[in-house]
């Protein structure tokens, strides 16, 4: 079984983010990390392989990421967790790509691998659109099992069963492979890379692909090929701090008075 996990390098979700004057996310001024929510997908891939006989049984995990040079750091993190190989799609023409372009590039890169199972996180913590997996499902013409809180893979029958967990409830879902599965954060506890894993990752190969390798024309992607445009942006007016009191035994009552004054109760 061949598993592909899509990962993205994003600004640390604990950091303040801003837009740069050319209306795209300023990635240079913040620490970059492997998207938190993708770690769950990498971990789930490792668990699926381990539960089905491991690498000896012929199962492999390939990470795919699109991004600038430093996105390799995120791929190394995934490799140090235990993924086997990685593909890095990098091309200057990709700067400013929107979700439609990104999904197109990822779909072409995935097609080359011809995987049985594609795993992703629910969203990247920077753009937060959460549409790439559904777009990949359309482009690759395979099913998408979203919001999986449990994944069971039957390697012989080539069937994947999931529990889709959302605010509406729990749905048992199933699909034949190949299939895209999006996992939620409660599915597992991602492992920390071991020292051995980190050392091993340094020797693992990262295949570099450019747009030409994927048969995509540079003008179709990036800022110029975008399907939507940012007209302008501005910092929101800062919220002024309001009243602040110390609780001297009547803090709760003062809180109620404030709510009443604001007609919130």
């Amino acid at each position: 079984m061949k598993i592909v996990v899509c990962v993205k390098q994003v600004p640390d979700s604990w950091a303040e983010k801003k837009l740069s004057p050319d209306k795209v996310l300023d990635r240079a001024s913040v620490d970059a990390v492997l998207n938190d929510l993708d770690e769950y997908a990498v971990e789930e891939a490792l668990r699926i392989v381990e539960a089905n006989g491991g690498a000896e049984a012929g199962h492999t995990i390939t990470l795919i990421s699109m991004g600038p040079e430093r996105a390799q750091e995120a791929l190394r993190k995934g490799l140090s967790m235990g993924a086997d190989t990685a593909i890095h799609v990098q091309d200057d023409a990709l700067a400013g790509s929107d979700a439609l372009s990104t999904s197109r590039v990822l779909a072409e890169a995935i097609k080359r691998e011809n995987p049985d199972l594609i795993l992703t996180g629910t969203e990247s913590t920077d753009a937060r659109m959460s549409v790439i997996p559904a777009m990949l499902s359309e482009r690759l013409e395979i099913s998408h099992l979203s919001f999986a809180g449990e994944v069971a893979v039957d390697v012989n029958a080539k069937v994947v069963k999931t529990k889709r967990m959302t605010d509406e409830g729990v749905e048992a879902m199933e699909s034949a492979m190949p299939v895209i599965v999006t996992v939620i954060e409660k599915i597992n506890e991602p492992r920390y890379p071991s020292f051995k894993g980190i050392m091993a990752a340094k020797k693992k190969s990262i295949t570099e692909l450019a747009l030409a390798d994927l048969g995509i024309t540079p003008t179709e992607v990036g800022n110029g090929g975008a399907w939507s445009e940012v007209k302008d942006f501005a910092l929101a007016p800062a919220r002024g701090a309001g009243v602040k009191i110390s609780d001297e035994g009547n803090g709760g009552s003062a809180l109620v008075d404030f709510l009443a004054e604001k007609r919130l109760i």
Partner: protein
Amino acid sequence: MSDILVFIDHTNGSVAKTASELLTLARSLGGAHAVIAGTSSDLDAAVPSINKFGAQAITLLESNEINNHPSSAIAKAIAELAATLSPKAILLPSTARGKEIAGRLAVRLESGIITDAIGLSSDLVATQSIFGGSTVVHSRVSKGIAIVTIRPNSIEASESPASATINKVPTSVSIGAQITTREPAIRGARPELSEANIIVSGGRGTDGNFAPIEELADVLGAAVGASRAATDAGWYPHSHQVGQTGKTVSPQLYIACGISGAIQHRAGMQTSKTIVVVNKDPEAPIFDIADFGVVGDLFAVAPQATAGIKARKG
């Protein structure tokens, strides 16, 4: 002209609150054409709620099975409808399901997509509040039909009764992934987090005891939220996490108890209309965005507030 398609999410004909908001918005942009997927009896149950908010037309994508499949089937049917109607825009709720369908529509209709908008002007310029409300962005779709998902609670619904023309389109579902069983969430008396008008949240300061948070929430008819510190510690379910890696909420009133206010959390709640904070640490950054802050122990302040509200309500 009913030139704005509006996706109506529903459960057995019981229409989601987002529908009233989307229909109100669509009316201001031209005319609302509601699209709903399901059976004729789902439609019958939904029509009064749709008419109340002024739809000019309703199309039922009629199928007994469509809701037993993932969103691909609905997306395909809406895309086919859009190809014949050529609407100016398609509006969907910025929910898990709404965004899945929207992403698929963008690929199928070769159209640009904007998610999580909090407003849309008559020339289809969308307003988004990003990075946790620190930045306001205006953008527009530059190719194809504008596909826009609207953040729940960002449009104030207003009624405008109408009697929509109804059209039923038989819709087939090809065999693909299937939903084999479904267990609806057991809903307590509390509203759903992203739709709630009031949210009371707890963080590290609860030390794992959410009882005072829940009691205050219940007396206010509020939803319960949690910071990442609280959900990571296993004190409250992940589904209640508000923040950068959780839900983005924008209620009328947000009460944060024992939450320091790291950007991780503020990113999910600082567009709330009114923010009230209870925290022992006077230096906690969350006080910077509070309309009303109490420096004190949440285990004293929250129960006193709960009792005070109960007393007022008699």
